[in-house]
């Protein structure tokens, strides 16, 4: 049975220009759908789907996608091996960010996280120092290599949360930079 199914959703894709409208036009049953992306219609057949991912055929071409994370405003996926971040409902972005500026919940990013586990070899700044994006904050040793961890933004070092000789795990907070 055919029925008009979905609402028109507006999306933005990280690192890709433009905004896109996508909508489920018809549910043809048997896991087959007609969807519309901007002004073009596409045939979609779901082969396999669960909360972690989906395999589908879009216009006779096979695709595989994994759903990584899904928040109110963002969806992280891996599509055919390529990681992608989509902004969902991007038409609301302007309104929502009007008073608070910046995007998303994990954002004022005071915390400088470590991307790697390792041992702290040296701490190159002091609390109170002002740093620029890219300045070396500390050096970690991992897999016999020394890796410099750089500041993710301009600011002042508010707090240093590590000690020389200590070990950090992946994603540990190294410092707070305001």
């Amino acid at each position, binding site marked *: 049975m055919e029925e008009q199914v979905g609402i028109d959703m507006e*999306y933005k*894709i990280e*690192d890709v220009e433009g905004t896109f409208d996508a909508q489920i036009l018809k549910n043809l049953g048997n896991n087959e759908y007609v969807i519309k992306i901007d002004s073009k219609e596409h045939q979609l057949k779901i082969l396999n789907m669960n*909360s972690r991912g989906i395999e*589908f055929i879009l216009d006779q071409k096979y695709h595989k996608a994994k759903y990584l994370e*899904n928040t109110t405003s963002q969806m992280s996926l891996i599509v055919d091996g390529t990681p992608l971040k989509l902004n969902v409902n991007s038409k609301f972005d302007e309104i929502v960010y009007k008073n608070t500026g910046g995007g998303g919940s994990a954002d004022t990013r005071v915390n400088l996280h470590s991307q790697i586990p390792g041992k702290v*070899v040296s701490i190159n700044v002091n609390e109170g120092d002002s740093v620029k994006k890219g300045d070396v904050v500390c050096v970690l040793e991992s897999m016999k290599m020394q890796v410099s961890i750089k500041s993710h933004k301009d600011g002042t070092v508010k707090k240093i949360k590590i000690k020389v000789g200590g070990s950090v795990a992946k994603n540990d907070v190294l410092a707070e930079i305001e």
Partner: protein
Amino acid sequence: MISKVLIANRGEIALRVIRTCKALGIKTVAVYSDEDYNSLHVKQANEAYHIGKAAPKESYLNQEKIMDAILASGADAVHPGYGFLSENSDFAKLCEDNKINFIGPTSESMDLCGDKMRCKSAMLKAKVPTVPGSPDLVKDVEEALNIANKIGYPVLLKSVYGGGGRGIRLVTNDKELREAYETVTGESIAAFGKSAIIVEKFLEKTRHIEYQMVRDKHGNAVHIFERECSIQRRNQKLIEQTPSPAVDQKTRDRIGELVVSAAEAVDYTNLGTAEFLRAENGEFYFIEINARLQVEHPITELVSGLDLVKLQIDIANGEPIPFKQKDLKMNGYAIECRINAEDTFLDFAPSTGPVPEVSIPSGPGIRCDTYLYSGCTVSPFYDSLMAKLCAWGQTFEESRLRMLNALNDFYIQGVETSIPLYKTILKTEEYKKGQLSTDFLKRFGIIDRLTQDIKAEKSEKKESALAAAVIHSEYFKSRVSSSARNSHPWKSKLE
């Protein structure tokens, strides 16, 4: 005759050695640390011995524990792989003393090769040209500064006990040299337990060209062609290929003869690699001998048809090399990409953790040596090399295209990899034309091009991404009907 080999290593090279041993009917013994309980090399060997905690010095670098395992298992030979103890002459000697056949050179020869200064003088005696630099180890940073200023910046600060890119820093002035001196010392001690520094002139736009060197216990020596390994970062090789676009048959033969002389000069036995730097003007300078089987040996195997690990075992058994130099002919072209668990955009910082899914490419001309399998883990304790992806073709273009396709098919979930970087490099005109040099990445702005390529790839996939996103809500709608039909405990609680 060797009947049981203990492989004193882990990861893909352990698997590699096991594979050849199995084909030869030789029994295999694996060793593993706390991190490697679930590794493939442990599962595929005939026997496996637990040798300690994750940290290398507690396990894979621990000679006593490994010797205990050798004796307990009754192995009569040991293959050290690359890295770890493969160039540790103390370990080679320990094996010799215990009458265990060490599949590699003698401890004396290894010692000589490992001591870059002594090796250098041996080469000079054999009339093999070397790179200008400090005549001996530098005593301190002041001496290093003197020599650097004498031969002229830029120079390389190198730890004699280095290899695999560790313990090397490029410096362009006195200030950098002072800073780097500390770092190089530290890295060397961390990885190899010792430190000693030399200064070497840094030649620009050089090509790193090495030769596969073979010498048996009867004094017969041959070379099995060159490999070009110019594309590097931080002095660690990323892509290797053979034949080198900069080497014609005449040069191949000429340098090949130097390689044979070099092997004789240090009384080398078994397989090793003689590394050269080829300057812009075509001059070749000897750098060092790697007294072990190289990471990139598969590409030599692909163009020669030989099994180099088998050759190692045969030589260790005392057999003569079964062919003469004139019998060796190169067939086709081969490229290897080292697939590392690294974040290219974070200065190649290691990326570790579980790998829930991996799909390994295959097909004509494709070979992939790897320890990966869906559900394995990339450990933070060991180096970041996950897989060696090789492609062979009748022509260079064929091997290049096969490699590109294989890179596209290679999917590793859970860690950042260098796969996108290689795709970008292999697509550049410069690579196609063979304009290789050790500063390839910087010279041709590869990282910027990588960023562009990634954006383009995302743009290509946008329709399927949007389709996947918009259909996501369908999943919940289908779950609605099933949960509504389940009986709720709420209804039955009527107190």
